[in-house]
């Protein structure tokens, strides 16, 4: 495992908006098959990091490598074809399109219609609630259903790396638990996952490893269980 290069390798990633430095040179790795989380307080730079990885922000070319290839600053539409999919903060579903149309949009880059249909069935197995609402417009779904749709839509591109930005945002604890169960199931099916979360406890319980971010820098990284036991983490993020 160690001999092989990680699926995603971030080195010295810096993001700035005009003069404001939001991410100040962070390192981060995700190996193939892993489920990794990135936790931190509001404004720590988690979304900026994820957006940079997904190709939505301009960054240095060598600061992000995917399957050893430098991809920093490559446009998002190209990265989707390489196997990266982002579930954006606040879900970003196409609210006036139906559930079916949203999922079809997720498979935009693909032309293998038979396989697409198979993946669609798989997604409806993961999210039976979506199956019942196929013709409903996405904007009329509940928050939890929209999150499911956003994840399903991202999976329709058959990603190797799934990036999720705060899937728990604004959802009831029970729904959040269900969403994380599904993400774990997706990871178990072979998709590598990098998830940004405010709900540190849940994320650490589900993930293999975790990174802690504070005002633009990574202050800690370890296995999830070690972080759950870490005093600093317990105080700052687990409210103990």
């Amino acid at each position, binding site marked *: 495992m160690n001999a092989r290069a990680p699926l995603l390798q971030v080195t010295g990633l810096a993001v700035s908006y005009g003069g404001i430095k939001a991410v100040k040179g962070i390192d981060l790795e995700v190996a193939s098959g892993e489920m990794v989380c990135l936790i931190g307080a509001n404004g720590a730079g988690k979304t900026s990091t994820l957006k940079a990885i*997904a*190709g*939505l922000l301009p960054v240095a070319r060598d600061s992000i490598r995917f399957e050893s290839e430098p991809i920093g600053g490559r*446009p*998002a*539409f190209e990265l*989707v*074809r390489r196997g990266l*999919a*982002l579930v*954006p903060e606040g879900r*970003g*579903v*196409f*609210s*006036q*399109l139906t559930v079916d149309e949203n999922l*079809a*949009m*997720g498979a*935009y*880059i693909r032309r293998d219609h038979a396989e697409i249909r198979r993946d669609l069935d798989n997604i409806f197995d993961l999210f039976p609630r979506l199956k019942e609402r196929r013709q409903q*417009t996405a*904007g*009329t779904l509940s928050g939890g259903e929209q999150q499911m749709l956003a994840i399903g*839509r*991202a999976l329709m*591109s058959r990603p190797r790396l799934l990036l999720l930005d705060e899937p728990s945002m604004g959802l009831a604890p029970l729904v959040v638990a269900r969403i994380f169960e599904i993400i774990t199931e997706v990871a178990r099916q072979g998709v590598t996952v990098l998830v940004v979360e405010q709900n540190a406890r849940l994320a650490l319980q589900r993930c293999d490893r975790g990174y802690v971010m504070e005002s633009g820098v990574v202050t800690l990284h370890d296995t999830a269980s070690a972080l759950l036991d870490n005093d600093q983490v317990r105080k700052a993020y687990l409210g103990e």
Partner: protein
Amino acid sequence: MMKLDLSARLPWIGIVLVALALAVLPFALAGIGTTWVRITNLALLFALLALGLNIVVGFAGLLDLGYIAFYAVGAYVYALLASPQFGLHLPFWAIIPLGALVACIFGVLLGAPTLKLRGDYLAIVTLGFGEIIRIFLNNLSQPVNITNGPQGISRIDSFRLGDFDFGKSEMLFGLNFSGPIKYYYLLLLVLIVIIVVNMRLQHSRIGRAWEAIREDEVAARAMGIDTTRMKLLAFAMGASFGGIAGGIFSSMQGFISPESFVLVESIMVLAMVVLGGMGNIWGVILGALLLSFVPELLRHTIEPLQRSLFGRSIVEPEVVRMLLFGLALVLMMLYRPAGLLPSAVRRRELARKSVEP
């Protein structure tokens, strides 16, 4: 069994009937007066324009207030290459594609710097672009006379294929095919082609990409859609259609000047798209036909009506026209905001917006 057969055939019977009606229409109109054939031709031309603008506004959701500029470009390309202005008389089948191409290039020139703009900002830039083109056409008579300035270009060639001249009357199959009637059939043919292109576009990957961009541009990019290219494509395709319509206009009228390409014309075409139903091909055509015919009907009824009632004309037909136009738009926005024949998605969009606070 009989019944089932009939209902399966019914759409075909309908299509045949409509085709027959469209085929005999110009002769029926010529019976009332050749003016009406000309009016119908202009209406068809506006339907072409509206379908072109519909690609930009209806499909891709980019508000373009300078669309008439592409029509102008197509018209001037034709006029310059087929008139005594430069003594050039190239055949139409060579110039029309060229006009489409030049308009397409202008479309990309407008599109490229405005890609990051949305909504109001885009509207203002496109409006400015339309005016710039018109002002150029108005002033390109000095120091070298290219466009002949405000006087415009006259004696533009009509379409000609061998001995068949679209500008001349001719007896065929015992019927008198006048110039306007020939143009009518040509326009109908072009319109059908453009309708088919629009329909195919709408249900293609490109059409879906436009739909995604209209809904949420960042999410569209995350789906793997090259939003930059798709937006440029919308501008380019809309502009090409405008260029083709402009070329036909030029040859049909035989005379063009910058006055035909003022801002009001852009707004008129946009009104056709909005009134008919943005994104719905049939709605857009309906909008174009209504906004072309109703004013003419008014022109031909209001004057005589006033004369017979009051002995003289009290209110100018133009005033009544604008009044009714304004009233129609207000009523539309109140009762059918998505247009007369709204597209499925637009209907949903507006339905939701009116429920939400």
